[in-house]
């Protein structure tokens, strides 16, 4: 099969997924008040068969996983906006599921990144402490505020993320003249072997206090919105603190596993995790990203990144609409 045939199949899958997204949104009836007592003796009004929602979630997250890899946009930042924008689930449950989905992606990549010494534990531990603590506060705030306020904030944040993705640069080997006192005393530095040349690359970081302060904000946002914060971690680690891009990307992914763990527990303890949603989404995104990696070896159509950012922006506008107009 030629490479463009495979890309064509990928696009067909996207369209199929899009069609499936639109149909339940039109089929769902909203809030007929009903009286519920115990778990039985209820006339169900949802006529979909039991496998409908898991399968739908699986297909949509599968496509999402492929697009996340091909588009260079984290799956963790796609899940909450798209699912909350186009599915009938309440934002509380979407955020809970979104955190678990982002968490499992980070858990899957973590061991490989750590063993290869690309994710730096020394860099991650202090940062994670700040971020995970603030994620707890973010989750508490996010569950305390009224839903429409959260929707508005989510919409604004997503649009901001889109702008960031379109404008942020990346620095492969930032110039760090000197460590700052904090990172020097914590011995946050390392060396890795640059694969293309075989040379060892020594790296260190600076502006650590400012970086940690930014991670306060990142942690709160991760907890509040259930978004995987890779889009924020990498610029702070790479552009602000000066870690090489490879180290920043790897450490960022690893960091997600810790930040999202703390927030996920808050959501879980508040009852915001629905198993029916979690497993198909988790499996869908992971399998989708694996397939995306295989497709990436064949070709990377440039328009996919634009398309994904466009979908994200659309989801952001939808969140704003839901928040303002209810």
């Amino acid at each position: 099969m030629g490479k463009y045939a495979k890309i064509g199949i990928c696009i067909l899958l996207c369209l199929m997924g899009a069609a499936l997204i639109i149909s339940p949104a039109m089929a769902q009836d909203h809030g007929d008040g009903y009286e519920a007592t115990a778990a039985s003796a209820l006339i169900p009004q949802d006529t979909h068969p039991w496998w409908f929602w898991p399968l739908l979630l699986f297909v949509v997250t599968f496509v999402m996983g492929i697009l996340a890899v091909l588009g260079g946009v984290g799956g963790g930042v796609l899940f909450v906006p798209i699912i909350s924008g186009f599915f009938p689930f309440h934002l509380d449950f979407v955020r809970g599921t979104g955190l678990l989905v982002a968490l499992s992606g980070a858990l899957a990549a973590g061991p490989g990144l750590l063993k290869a010494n690309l994710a730096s534990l020394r860099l991650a531990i202090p940062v994670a402490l700040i971020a995970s603590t603030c994620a707890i506060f973010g989750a508490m705030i996010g569950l305390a505020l009224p839903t429409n306020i959260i929707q508005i904030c989510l919409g604004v944040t997503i649009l901001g993320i889109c702008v960031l993705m379109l404008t942020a640069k990346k620095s492969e080997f930032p110039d760090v003249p000197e460590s700052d006192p904090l990172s020097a005393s914590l011995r946050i530095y390392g060396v890795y072997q640059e694969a293309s040349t075989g040379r060892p690359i020594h790296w260190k970081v600076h502006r650590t206090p400012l970086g940690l302060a930014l991670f306060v904000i990142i942690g709160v946002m991760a907890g509040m919105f259930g978004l995987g914060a890779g889009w924020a971690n990498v610029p702070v680690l790479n552009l602000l603190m000066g870690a090489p891009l490879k180290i920043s990307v790897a450490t960022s992914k690893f960091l997600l596993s810790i930040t999202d763990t703390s927030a996920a527990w808050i959501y879980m303890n508040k009852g915001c995790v629905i198993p029916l949603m979690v497993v198909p989404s988790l499996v869908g995104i992971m399998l989708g990203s694996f397939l995306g990696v295989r497709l990436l070896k064949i070709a990377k159509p440039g328009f996919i990144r634009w398309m994904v950012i466009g979908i994200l922006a659309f989801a952001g506008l939808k969140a704003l609409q839901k928040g303002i107009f209810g």
Partner: protein
Amino acid sequence: MPLKQKVRDRMVPVADYATISQDATLKEAAMALRGSFCELSGAQSCTEAGHRTILAMDDKGRLTGILDFNSFLRALIPEVAGGLTARLSALGVSAAFAEQGAEEQDEARMGLSARVRKNAQVRVRDIMLKVRGTIEPDASLMDALKALFKNRITKLPVLENGKLAGVLRDTDLFMAVTDLLTEADE
């Protein structure tokens, strides 16, 4: 009768077998195994007549593990030869880089030579296979045969008082058993 012989009569003495420290890198172990397998001491082409495994020793000279061709390949090209977890792990790492638009930083997409050279930095002790059965030099060949098949291995290290004395290979036992056929024809 061949099968009444002892293990020490058929084993390869340890001096003729390739060994490596378990703290050496995979690259050093690979070079040592190539030297032994190719039976060359110069730049001539490889005879491929030497031994196909290399023994790992600790700093006290005790046998701690064994490496065969497959264990080298599994470590050097895990995305192809590795087990399911190694291949999934490689996919997960690649996905992590691609999701940040940094796939050119992804080591799994680098050239094969760069990847292999990097993977060869791993230490022998991290990937060596466990020694699943050993035998004494004064044991009979029948016992050696049983040990080989019971443990499903092809190389049986021979330990004398806990120290490595040699290696008994499945080829040595093949020769011993088929010697019975040559005798019967006479």
